[in-house]
């Protein structure tokens, strides 16, 4: 596989042989990836996606739990008030008997 050759690159630039200098850089960056290189890339992406998704879902679950807690508090308060109202009504009914 070709490596970048500093000396050669600088010589070509000095001689204003730009097309050849470009070809030298291009030959390096066009090197084929091995199967493992490509696999490493995909595994890196998927790992990154998993980490990000886990953070987003953790935030979402916190939101759900907070909302659930608030709704439970409301349900309990409502139930207690209904009970008091029912008892008061019962008292009134007894008083009026």
């Amino acid at each position: 596989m070709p490596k970048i050759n500093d000396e050669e690159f600088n010589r070509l630039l000095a001689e204003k042989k730009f097309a050849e200098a470009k070809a030298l850089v291009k030959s390096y960056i066009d090197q084929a990836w091995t199967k493992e290189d490509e696999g490493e890339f995909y595994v890196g992406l998927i790992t990154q996606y998993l980490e990000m998704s886990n953070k987003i879902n953790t935030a979402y679950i916190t939101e759900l739990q907070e909302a659930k807690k608030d709704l439970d508090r409301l349900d309990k308060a409502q139930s207690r008030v209904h009970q008091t109202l029912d008892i008061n009504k019962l008292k009134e009914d007894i008083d009026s008997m």
Partner: protein
Amino acid sequence: MPEYSANVPSPEEQDVRAKLSPDQLQSMDQSALEQKLAEKPFFAFVQKIAEKQNVDIQKYLTDNTPEKVLQLAERYDKVVRPTVDRFKKFAGDQFLGKMKALPPEAIAKAGESIEAFMSQEAAQEAVKGAANLESFSAKYSALLDQYEHLANMAGQLNRELSAKYGTTNKGELSAIKAQAELMSASAKTQGVENTTIHAGERTKIAQRRLNSVARFFKTIRTLGKERRSDAEIAEDEKFSDAQEPLQTKITSFEEASLDIGLKIPAREDYDKQIGDVREQILAGLSDANKLRDILLEATMDVVTSGKYNIEDAASSVNELGDEWGDQNDAEFNDYIKQMIEQTYQAAVKRGVEATTENINPNKIEEFNRFVVDNVRSNESKQLITDTVQQSIDAESDKRSPKVAQLTLMLNRVNNLKFS
């Protein structure tokens, strides 16, 4: 009649081995090993271990007893294979399959390359010691376990909330609320004294949404925590303060319900007020749900776009922000857009950083050295920039993973300071 069993229990392996001569033992192991090496993935794994030790596979198999290689095979079947299979399954079903421009044959090819890389990584760990295979497995399993756990948990909570307050019941709630409103109005005309538990106006729709969204984003923004300025932290505090009015309402409902001496208003009026607050919470949840979907989609876009370009991401964010375009509250819309944009940019930045760590670091390092050694003039900088940019353009339509590496190279050239 006596009962006869047809089951013949298998003897323990070590008992069998104890009865065999060394020659017989070796012959048995050799046969088992040959059978195992006929399995392509295991053969490739052993080959990679041999490569890591700078020997060919024949020498590796000669230097190690069949018994030792079979022990490795056991660890491979128990630890490496399930980890690779699980990760590959996730990659195919939930990641690569969602990449819009990736055809099925490319997905299959990507699966093969994932296996090749993971097998190489496992081989690297195996060379350090068989016990290290556990850490290889733990690294990937932990992420996938957490992902599945969170998905299940969110699903379960959603089902619970939906069963109690969901679309079916929400209709009922609305009907009850509407009825309560009518009765309340009627009661008022009859001169019934309705004491409101709360003074205060109805929260604006935008404000209501803001409460939930602010909390959601506050957690999300830990992504860029280390880079947050004091001004950003202050901004978070400001929006988290928006939570207070709703919490104050809930607390006062609770206090009122515990105050026996309190003059309780008509049941209908009370139910209407509590119903309003309940609906505010549910509307906030609906927003959080939408935001989560958008953020997950945005994350997928960022990590699969193949070109880590903040400007592109920012313009996508504006489109996403239009989701809230029907709201009249300009401040609220700006806030949402800004938050998504920041999250998006943090994701992009992380993407570049993760790529630097993960992709072919030797090649990038080599290129960086080359750039430092050679970019001495604008002329040479321009030449290298043009060459890399042309390669990016040539690759970008193919959504090749190489584009990410080339982009890093280009960034390196562009960020180089001239002395």
